[in-house]
């Protein structure tokens, strides 16, 4: 499964694979050739990934082989106990959580599950939570607060589910409640945007003390396709919208929305999930160590200031008052 800007890479990969099948005794040049191809591939990868457009990044963030929340759980945690249910109505399959141990840190780990096979995708509603997902997340966060456990939220969702029953059960209220309650939680909250940060659906678990983001994840107020459909009346112009919306980690760091970029290996997380997950683990652990040193009151005040600063408007004299 290749993205079109990776076609050249795919070709080289294929040639390497072909050559590797040959007998090196019959082809004395073989190892040298393969080595050259690998070097070429490496530099090409670097070149491609240094020149990605925002829209390329969107494609990578949605890549089939990109590590998903369950991969992160398996790779980052020495223990995970899933805790189900919102105690009101259901157990959301798109947004899950539970006790987890990362290094020596016991935390409450929460995140969106997308699924990889068709069955999994359907089961997990393509990672689009319903209100009971946000309410389960809040229940678990409150439990973490009671037990003094830091919270780690891993964000990867196209959007909160725009369904009829989601509306009837208060999708808007569920997200709003989380934003309000998370502002006041008395434990550290680490957020990692790992794939798609889809608008309010992402933000619903993304009010944190530290917002980390994988290099090729995206985080946006609206999907580029939707934005293009509205502003250019043409969903095909999504690449332009992706550009205009400033949704890449680099842009978001500049805008002061995120605190840290977690570098992905050359060629993206989908080429090397293991390294990606390991780097994520390291970044989360470092952040936890830092945040755990802060007092509860300090944490909460800093969190307030952090979000209060976002989009802070310098007061300007209005024309009328000269």
């Amino acid at each position, binding site marked *: 499964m290749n993205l079109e800007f990776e076609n050249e890479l795919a070709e080289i990969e294929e040639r390497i694979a072909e050559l590797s099948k040959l007998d090196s005794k019959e082809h004395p040049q073989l190892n040298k050739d393969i080595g050259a191809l690998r070097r070429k591939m490496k530099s090409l990868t670097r070149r491609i990934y240094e020149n990605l457009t925002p829209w390329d990044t969107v494609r990578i963030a949605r890549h089939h082989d990109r590590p998903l929340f369950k991969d992160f759980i398996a790779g980052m945690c020495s223990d995970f106990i899933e805790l189900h249910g919102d105690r009101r109505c259901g157990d959301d399959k798109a947004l899950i959580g539970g006790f987890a141990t990362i290094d020596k840190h016991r935390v409450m780990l929460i995140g969106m599950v997308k699924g990889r096979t068709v069955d999994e995708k359907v089961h997990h509603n393509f990672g689009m939570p319903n209100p009971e997902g946000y309410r389960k997340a809040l229940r678990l966060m409150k439990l973490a607060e009671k037990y003094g456990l830091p919270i780690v939220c891993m964000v990867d969702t196209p959007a909160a589910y725009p369904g009829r029953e989601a509306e*009837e059960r208060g999708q808007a209220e569920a997200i709003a409640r989380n934003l*309000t309650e998370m502002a006041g939680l008395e434990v550290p909250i680490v957020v990692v945007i790992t794939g798609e940060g889809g608008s309010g659906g992402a933000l619903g678990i993304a009010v944190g003390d530290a917002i980390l983001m994988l290099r090729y994840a995206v985080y946006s107020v609206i999907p580029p396709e939707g934005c293009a459909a509205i502003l250019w009346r043409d969903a095909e112009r999504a690449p332009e919208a992706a550009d205009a919306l400033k949704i890449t980690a680099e842009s978001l760091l500049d805008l002061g929305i995120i605190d840290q970029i977690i570098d992905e290996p050359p060629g993206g997380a989908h080429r090397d999930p293991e390294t990606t997950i390991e780097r994520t683990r390291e970044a989360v652990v470092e952040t936890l160590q830092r945040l755990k040193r802060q007092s509860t009151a300090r944490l909460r005040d800093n969190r307030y200031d952090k979000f209060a600063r976002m989009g802070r408007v310098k007061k300007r004299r209005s024309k009328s008052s000269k």
Partner: protein
Amino acid sequence: MGWFKRSARKTPQNEIPEGLFAVCPRCKAHIYKDEYESAFKVCPKCNHHERLTAAERIELIVDKGTFREFNSEIKPNDPLDFKDAKGSYRQKAEDAIAKTGLNEAVVTGSGDINGTRAVIAVMDFRFLGGSLASATGEKILLASEHALRMKRALLIFSASGGARMHEGIVSLMQMAKTCAGIARLDRAGLPYISIMTDPTYGGVSASFATVGDLNIAEPGALIGFAGRRVIEQTIKEKLPDDFQTAEYLLEHGFLDSIVNRGEMKDYLHRVLQYSLGKKV
């Protein structure tokens, strides 16, 4: 979020003829313009509540001469230097300012409601669809901080299609920012009353508008997270006519009450007497 262009209904104000009569956009009744205006644009025949400007709303709710506006000079930011097919966001914002006489989609200030002072924020749908952006969020946060300092109630009248996509992620963050302000009021035991007017969607319904101590709405107001069309496309079925109306939300447990415009001021005053007992 950001779908306000689609979900916004035609502004029916245009349909009112210049003459003696106004035409109700819902039941098409002809109403004496004077009668219509003095009833604050509520149709006497079908109780349709037409959208109000922020100024009209303040006139309706706040005791005459007591409104003191905050931060009126705050204007839209353009953090992304955003341009689309029809031009720049900067120009769009300037046009909105010129059209409405407002500097942003929300007017904030303090004022008395039958003698009880409160901090009030009123959104104006005419200003870029009442969209939530950095300056809107900033004004609301500053209003909540004022309420906190002065130990007053905060009242927000919402009217919004959602987040303003021209400010991208910065506008999304205003949801968290405004809610952080609400959370502080809550911890301080101060009342926050949300009044949802037509329409309240997306980034506004999914932030401060739905977490009031009391959530109140005007009759017939459309309130939801996603727009009707988006949902119909997603689930591939038609939605019932009353979907996302205030009445529908009341039935589903998300509103404390639906209050007619003519009774709103007295209602809010009554409610404030219960909510401020501990503080004043």
